[in-house]
């Protein structure tokens, strides 16, 4: 982290960048939040640790409009989103000084709490320089430990890899965290009977409060104005009064980002209700991979996305019924 801060100071000092986009410590030991730093002085609040899960690439849409360059800290998975945003002309590559930051997996405080660790006062072992094996947690009930792995976000268990797709320089080490297949959960649902599927999504989606956190955080959901907020479809936002609403919302949301979603997992991370929203996106990704050839959004900045492309012998929609 010190290395990052030092580098940030240098870049600010020599005028390469006008500001730094990173994270600052929150009020709790586990809730750092995205922040801009414009002076060397302000960098004292800068943090980068296992709880810095937020994908900062979306902030670059606004930062691209500002005077001067912004140094932005991007984790390996965030760089896919950044590339995708370049492809869609939403960010300006020339306005970004990308520091690819190392990643040893990001932590999910809910998972730690679920292990009965309550009353957290401080957490050791989540620094980027740590070996990411064990977390030592001081609580009001005494010291507890937790395997780093067990506290990790779901998305880190199915990590796309720790290689930055785009960067100006890389700071910090990474550690491979993938130990599961990202489509396993999708496969499990696919194998259910229709009633079970329906019940599963009904129960998950009934938790939705239409707070729009998923939409606001998603780097692909970057429309100036969402269709659900405009009158273009007579579908503008309504209160959450019936079950259809969320289904429509979440299907369309996933459809609008299909072929553009990099599977960064931010939607699920920020959902206050803990709805596994990534299961929608991953279903589309899995279908696209299987039907149209493997495609990873954000791997490059110029290829055609699967929904703006076709081949003459694509599968017919009836394949949905045929493959059962």
């Amino acid at each position: 982290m010190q290395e990052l801060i030092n580098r940030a100071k240098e870049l600010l000092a020599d005028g390469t960048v006008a500001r730094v986009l990173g994270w600052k410590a929150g009020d709790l030991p586990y809730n750092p939040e995205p922040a801009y730093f414009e002076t060397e002085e302000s960098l004292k609040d800068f943090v980068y640790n296992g709880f810095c899960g937020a994908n900062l690439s979306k902030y670059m849409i606004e930062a691209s409009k500002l005077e001067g360059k912004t140094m932005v800290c991007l984790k390996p998975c965030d760089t896919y989103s950044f590339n995708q945003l370049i492809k869609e002309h939403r960010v300006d590559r020339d306005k970004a000084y990308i520091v690819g930051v190392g990643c040893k997996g990001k932590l999910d405080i809910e998972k730690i709490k679920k292990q009965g660790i309550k009353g957290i006062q401080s957490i050791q072992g989540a620094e980027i320089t740590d070996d990411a094996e064990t977390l030592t947690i001081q609580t009001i009930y005494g010291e507890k430990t937790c395997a780093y792995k067990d506290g990790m976000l779901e998305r880190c268990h199915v990590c796309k890899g720790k290689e930055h797709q785009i960067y100006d320089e890389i700071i910090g080490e990474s550690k491979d965290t993938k130990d599961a297949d990202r489509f396993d959960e999708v496969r499990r649902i696919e194998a259910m009977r229709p009633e079970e599927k329906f019940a599963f999504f009904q129960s998950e989606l009934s938790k939705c409060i239409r707070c729009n956190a998923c939409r606001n955080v998603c780097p692909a959901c970057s429309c100036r104005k969402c269709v659900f907020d405009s009158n273009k479809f007579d579908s503008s936002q309504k209160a959450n009064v019936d079950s259809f609403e969320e289904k429509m919302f979440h299907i369309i949301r996933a459809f609008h980002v299909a072929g553009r979603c990099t599977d960064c997992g931010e939607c699920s991370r920020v959902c206050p209700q803990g709805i596994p929203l990534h299961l929608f996106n991953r279903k589309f990704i899995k279908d696209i991979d299987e039907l149209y050839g493997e495609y990873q959004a954000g791997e490059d900045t110029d290829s055609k996305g699967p929904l703006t492309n076709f081949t003459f012998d694509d599968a017919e929609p009836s394949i949905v019924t045929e493959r059962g």
Partner: protein
Amino acid sequence: MSIEAKEEFRPKIVAFCCNWCSYAGADLAGSSRLSYPADVKIIRVPCSCRVNPMFILRAFEKGADGVIMCGCHPGDCHYSTGNYYARRRMTLLFSMLDYIGVENGRTRVEWVSAAEGVKFSTTMNEFVEKIYSLGKNVRLEDIRCRN
């Protein structure tokens, strides 16, 4: 399904037809007097690629029991490529509906040319039959829209 129940349930079926092939196919079915149930109502669109998944969800929301989209055969699109995009969009949408537990068969895509009046009528008969067998759409309906 019993006969009484069949009499009670009259499905609402929306058919999106592209102007150049399928709508003309439906016209030909009409001029050839090839009947299909009156439950099917056709909406004319310029091309199958004009059909937004939101239209389909909207139909279900408002109480449709089945939605079918018809377009020119792949390779014959009036706009050259429209139905290729539509094909991908619909495949993914239908797969998602299946995934969240909506009964398979409430949605369908069929390519019908302007010469295929017979195919249009057979397709609609089959589709209506299927929707009868599935019964009322409850999983995707907006309860506020029920009269």
